[in-house]
């Protein structure tokens, strides 16, 4: 079976320098023109689109948040009607969770993981392109529905029976449920790509204990996605079936049960939090090591903590259901399991603190965001320990205390590291530095604005303010804290406006970055900024966990890959020993066509079950087109 390269094939061992780069660029570049752009399977192009789209949804979700804060700034305001408010809070939650938080983390992984493991493209690049289109179409579907007043209004959790046909006779709940299907298909596809990229596409010598912590974090996250998201897909599918063809999953008069929905939803919903948070920890580890000028202390502890967090995150969904009348002892056990997840999270915090303690910090914007992360996230984690307690939860459940808690965890644990990551990796992606001066303003506005917006909500929850109310009366005395919170939200929003200004300004005027502006240690900094289509002219060989620190002068590489067609190097799972030179797919329009066919199928099937019948053949055709060998050389060996 050994199929050695044909002798007359042009390989990278006979080319050097500029000649090699030019040749590889010709092979790996995205075709020009609009159609070419739609065909792109370059993980950097797709990743960039993914990041920009996710941030666009952050902007939209943020605008909704501001609208809500205006409505709640004082008692009995009529800025928004009840109906609008309910749509808006549902859209805010759904957008932030499904269209921003998860996609943006996967987007960074799509861009960075192949670079960090030293390969030329992600595994299954066409699936990657398909995933992006599905995400884009799903997000647009939700938002266009909203703009036509058909936005979901049943909460991002869409509890039955409120979301059943009887109580939501409009299409609003179907829009929500089908948006779930879109985004989960997209997320699951990326998860599989990341797992295979990390397992098989690592540079030779990148053994398991030399994988960068960010890549480890994304690997664990991808497994969480793979095991958590099927649950919400079963849930959303059964909800649509209940609404469309009268199945009885959630109809308590026919043997169904509303709590089945809650179990399915939270079995996904709790790991979801860690799907968002674990990438954040990976970003923290990456940024911290670079800016305190030493590797993170306790590399194995951090990895074991990530894995432990992943496992534990599946054992505590019930703490979202403490007030549904569960058996008391069972609920008590979920208190313990919920609190235990503080242990791996705590271990990571201790590792970072020790790293900072021993390091030699350089206080650039990314590090500021990491420090902000520690302060905010630890508070959110501790309020999490509080709400894990059954008796405490019976009081604070579904109040503003919870709103405060999870914004501390999600914004503190994921968005602060994410913005730090934007400052950190922007030079690599765009080739230019972001303004440091604007960055400092950005950080302080975000840090102050966030705390002013969300800390008062703890108190509001304790003094009785429930969530998801579109207004409250003056005699409840919630007005002052709400006004304060709304003010803080504006400051916080301003910080994101500043980030946007900084990005737009720096894209054109920013200081040129060079390959490795931060003098960091991982492989993505071993190539130019932005990286060429082929990522690396030659695949690096890794001899150290921090390769660029271990040897900043020269990079050991392998030669022998094709220079006239797309070829990547597959290595063994544990030891990363080179095994196969595998063809990597060419650009193709089929993923886009398949995504369009799937979109027609999905949207059609919330209106008629027959869509399953007429929607399947186009999908099958596009999939066959996608996988049919193009007759090019690499397919034909």
């Amino acid at each position, binding site marked *: 079976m050994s199929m050695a390269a044909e002798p007359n094939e042009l390989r990278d061992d006979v080319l050097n320098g500029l000649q090699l780069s030019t040749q590889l660029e010709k092979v790996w570049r995205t075709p020009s023109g609009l159609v070419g752009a739609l065909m792109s399977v370059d993980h950097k192009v797709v990743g960039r689109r993914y990041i920009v789209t996710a941030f666009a949804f952050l902007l939209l979700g943020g605008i909704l948040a501001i609208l809500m804060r205006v409505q709640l700034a004082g008692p009995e305001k009529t800025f928004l009607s009840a109906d609008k408010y309910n749509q808006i809070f549902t859209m805010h939650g759904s957008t932030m969770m499904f269209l921003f938080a998860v996609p943006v983390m996967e987007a960074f992984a799509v861009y960075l993981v192949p670079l960090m493991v030293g390969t030329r493209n992600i595994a299954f690049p066409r699936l990657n392109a398909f995933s992006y289109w599905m995400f884009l179409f799903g997000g647009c579907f939700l938002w266009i529905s909203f703009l036509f007043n058909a936005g979901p209004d049943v909460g991002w959790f869409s509890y039955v029976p409120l979301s059943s046909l009887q109580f939501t006779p409009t299409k609003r709940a179907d829009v929500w449920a089908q948006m779930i299907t879109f985004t989960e298909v997209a997320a699951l596809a990326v998860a599989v790509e990341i797992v295979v990229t990390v397992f098989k596409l690592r540079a030779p010598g990148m053994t398991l204990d030399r994988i960068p912590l960010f890549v480890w974090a994304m690997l664990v996250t991808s497994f969480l996605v793979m095991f958590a998201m099927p649950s919400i897909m079963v849930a959303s599918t059964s909800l649509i079936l209940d609404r469309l063809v009268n199945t009885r999953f959630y109809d308590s008069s026919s043997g169904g049960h509303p709590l089945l929905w809650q179990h399915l939803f939270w079995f996904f919903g709790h790991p979801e939090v860690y799907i968002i948070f674990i990438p954040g920890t990976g970003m923290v580890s990456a940024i911290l090591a670079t800016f305190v000028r030493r590797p993170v202390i306790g590399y194995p502890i951090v990895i074991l903590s990530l894995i432990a967090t992943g496992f534990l995150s599946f054992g505590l969904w019930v703490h979202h259901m403490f007030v549904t009348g569960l058996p008391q002892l069972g609920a*008590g056990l979920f208190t313990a399991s919920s609190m235990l997840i503080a242990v791996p999270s705590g271990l990571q915090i201790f590792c970072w*603190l020790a790293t900072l303690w021993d390091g030699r910090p350089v206080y650039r914007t990314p590090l500021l965001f990491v420090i902000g992360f520690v302060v905010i996230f*630890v508070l959110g984690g501790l309020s999490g320990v*509080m709400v894990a307690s059954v*008796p405490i939860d019976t009081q604070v459940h579904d109040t503003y205390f919870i709103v405060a808690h999870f914004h501390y965890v999600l914004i503190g644990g994921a968005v602060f590291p994410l913005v730090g990551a934007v400052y950190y990796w922007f030079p690599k992606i765009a080739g230019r530095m972001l303004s440091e001066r604007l960055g400092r303003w950005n950080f302080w506005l975000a840090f102050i604005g966030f705390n002013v917006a969300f800390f008062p909500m703890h108190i509001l929850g*304790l003094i009785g303010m429930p*969530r998801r109310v579109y*207004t409250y009366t003056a005699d409840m005395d919630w007005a002052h804290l709400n006004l304060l919170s709304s003010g803080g939200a504006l400051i916080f929003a301003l910080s994101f406006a500043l980030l946007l200004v900084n990005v737009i300004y720096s894209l054109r005027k920013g200081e040129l970055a060079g390959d490795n502006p931060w003098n960091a240690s991982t492989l993505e900094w071993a190539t130019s900024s932005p990286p060429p289509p082929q990522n690396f002219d030659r695949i690096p060989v890794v001899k150290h966990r*921090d390769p660029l620190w271990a040897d900043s002068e020269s990079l050991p590489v392998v030669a022998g890959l094709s220079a006239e067609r797309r070829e990547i190097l597959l290595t063994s799972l544990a030891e990363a020993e080179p095994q196969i030179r595998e063809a990597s797919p060419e650009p193709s329009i089929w993923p886009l066509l398949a995504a369009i066919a799937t979109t027609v199928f999905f949207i059609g099937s919330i209106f008629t079950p027959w869509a399953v019948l007429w929607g399947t053949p186009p999908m099958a055709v596009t999939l066959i087109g996608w996988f049919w060998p193009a007759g090019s050389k690499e397919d034909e060996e």
Partner: protein
Amino acid sequence: MPVWVRIVLVLCTTWPLAACAGRQSTLDPQGLQSEQILHTLFIFLGVAAIVWIAVVIVLALGMLRRKRLADQPLDLHQAFEERTGRVIIGLGVATTVIVLGLSFVSYAGQRIVFAKGENALTLKIIGHQWWWEVRYEDDSPHRSFVTANEIRIPTGQPVKVELESADVVHSFWVPSLTGKMDLITGQKNELQFTAKNAGVYRGQCAEFCGLQHAHMAFAVIALPPDEFGRWRDRENQSANSPADQLGKQGEALFRARGCALCHNISGTLAGGQLGPDLTHIGSRTTITAGTLPNTPATLGAWIADPQHIKPGNLMPKMPLQSGELIAILHYLEQLK
């Protein structure tokens, strides 16, 4: 819990709540259960505060500490790394001990909060979009009665509420008395609590239940036992017959204009079951699930255009002449 902490917290967060709406605060416990929960909460809060402050101090010291001069990222000392690793593991063990300890504290509190009291007064509460049906049930049917959005209970006696839903999921929550419990379609839940002091305690639906979730409040009025007994006796009686001509006209209009199709008034021909029972509406403190105080003006405005005050609720706007409205109002006010 330190008494002064509690006093300060209560003072700074709840003093204006003594107003007409009633108190609605976890930090202002007036029942056995809410007091226990606050106790547990303060233990957790104390531990959390200590941990958070410790982390921030270590972070600050780590930042201020004098550092190596040269930028040599890989110039690491094996002994230091190993020692630090051991400290981190030690802290991990400490974290485990703390969270397990807190789990026990939590479970102990949970046992007390969910303990079943003897000799409890049993009520059945049924959640509707967006109001509360309250049924005082008794073995003898003539001692059973139905009311809405206002729950009167005796102080000192355990109260057992059986929670059901007529439509979607709701949540019963009176923070000053106890934590919440959901009302779930097709399932019977139960909650027990005991009010220590007499007073008006506001509650509110805590699970999103649709358009007017924000306007689904209720009041728990804790009365001294003898006063409660008198109230209960009065409540057992059928509605007052209207004393004057205008009232009689109102009663007739109540039926003629369709009100009676949805509302029940015991002892009259009005026997609708869709809306709140109005047998003693005149004696309630609020109307439309805690949304408005019960005054002739608010009640009149409500009847005249319910969809304006609470859009989406089931009560339709009835075409009434102003004279008719006045007659119906006059009738309802007499239903004490």
